[in-house]
């Protein structure tokens, strides 16, 4: 899922300085699951903004809305009546949520409240880690399901660099060296020949950015 993190409050306050009435839009899918932009966090952010504006003596009215997915045209259009009442929209969706709103309401300034960080999974309660970089040329079949492009700092395709330090990565003694993990996994499955093969340089342009996927009609 897409993982995001809320921006610090003063950055957000700078963006919406001067507006009297704004709409904060939450997104009900990925950012809810990673506790960043769900209905709860929308309420917390609006409460903080109201507190701050009251403290500074300027007037601020906030409308709140959380839709199922911000990256869906029809769902964003449903916000029309609320958007018309406000001067600016603060989106708590990931990057792929802020832009549809900006596109569908072109004359309305739309601001991001979150920093989208990576595609990942939960590691513990309230902790998420990156597991996929969406490189467009998946390599997982060759490494027993451990992605070296994400989990190896240098993204090597051909076995460990000289910097493996007791199974940990040279640059961070907390992080495991991806290729040590891959070696153990392949050894366990008896598929070490996958690691012995030579892999040519990666096609960095497998997906011409910004990517586009066109599937044949279902």
């Amino acid at each position, binding site marked *: 899922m897409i993982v995001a993190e809320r921006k610090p*409050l003063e950055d957000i306050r700078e963006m919406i300085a001067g507006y009297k009435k704004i709409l904060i839009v939450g997104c009900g899918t990925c950012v809810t699951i990673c506790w960043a932009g769900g209905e709860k966090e929308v309420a*917390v952010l609006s409460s*903080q903004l*109201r*507190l*701050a504006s*009251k*403290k*500074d003596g300027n007037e601020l009215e906030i409308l709140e809305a959380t839709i199922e997915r911000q990256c869906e045209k029809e769902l964003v259009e449903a916000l029309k009546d609320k958007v018309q009442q406000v001067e600016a929209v603060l989106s708590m969706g990931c990057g792929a949520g802020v832009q549809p709103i900006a596109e569908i309401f072109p004359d309305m300034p739309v601001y991001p409240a979150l920093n989208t960080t990576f595609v990942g999974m939960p590691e513990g309660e309230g902790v998420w880690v990156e597991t996929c970089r969406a490189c467009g040329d998946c390599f997982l079949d060759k490494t027993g399901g451990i992605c070296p492009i994400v989990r190896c700092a240098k993204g090597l395709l051909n076995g460990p660099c000289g910097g493996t330090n007791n199974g940990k990565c040279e640059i961070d003694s907390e992080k495991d060296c991806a290729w040590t993990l891959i070696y153990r996994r392949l050894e366990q499955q008896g598929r070490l020949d996958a690691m012995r093969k030579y892999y040519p340089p990666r096609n960095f342009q497998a997906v011409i950015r910004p990517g586009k996927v066109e599937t044949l009609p279902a």
Partner: protein
Amino acid sequence: MKAKGAFLPDIVAFCCAQSAYQAADTAGSMRITYPENIRVIRVPCAGRVDVLHILRAFEKGADGVLVLGCHEEACRHLSGNIRAKNRVQRVNTLLQEVGIDGKRVEMFTLAPNQGSRFARIANEVNERIKELGPSPVKSGA
């Protein structure tokens, strides 16, 4: 704005029904007095107090918020009081971000038969909030 001396802080106290609320009752039955501007709100467990409730209390003009739960390792719901402690810490950071003094929200632990401890906490916090003065949200300071 009321004169400093006459400032009577509005303190909201979320009291866990298993311990703090009964401690408040015990204080009453033992006729131990504590400031009357402590406003007690009964909750099933300290773990029921949400970050949002505390922020909304400040929005409505509270000068200080107290979360009173069971002692550690004595919570009927095992992790209720620990979650409450972590949430109070988060509210501290949220308030600092806004520019309100984080010391306006605090958590204490009590047992149901500690009436005098409830009164002592109420008095101490009342004095501390008096020093801090009215909440900047209310007076737009």
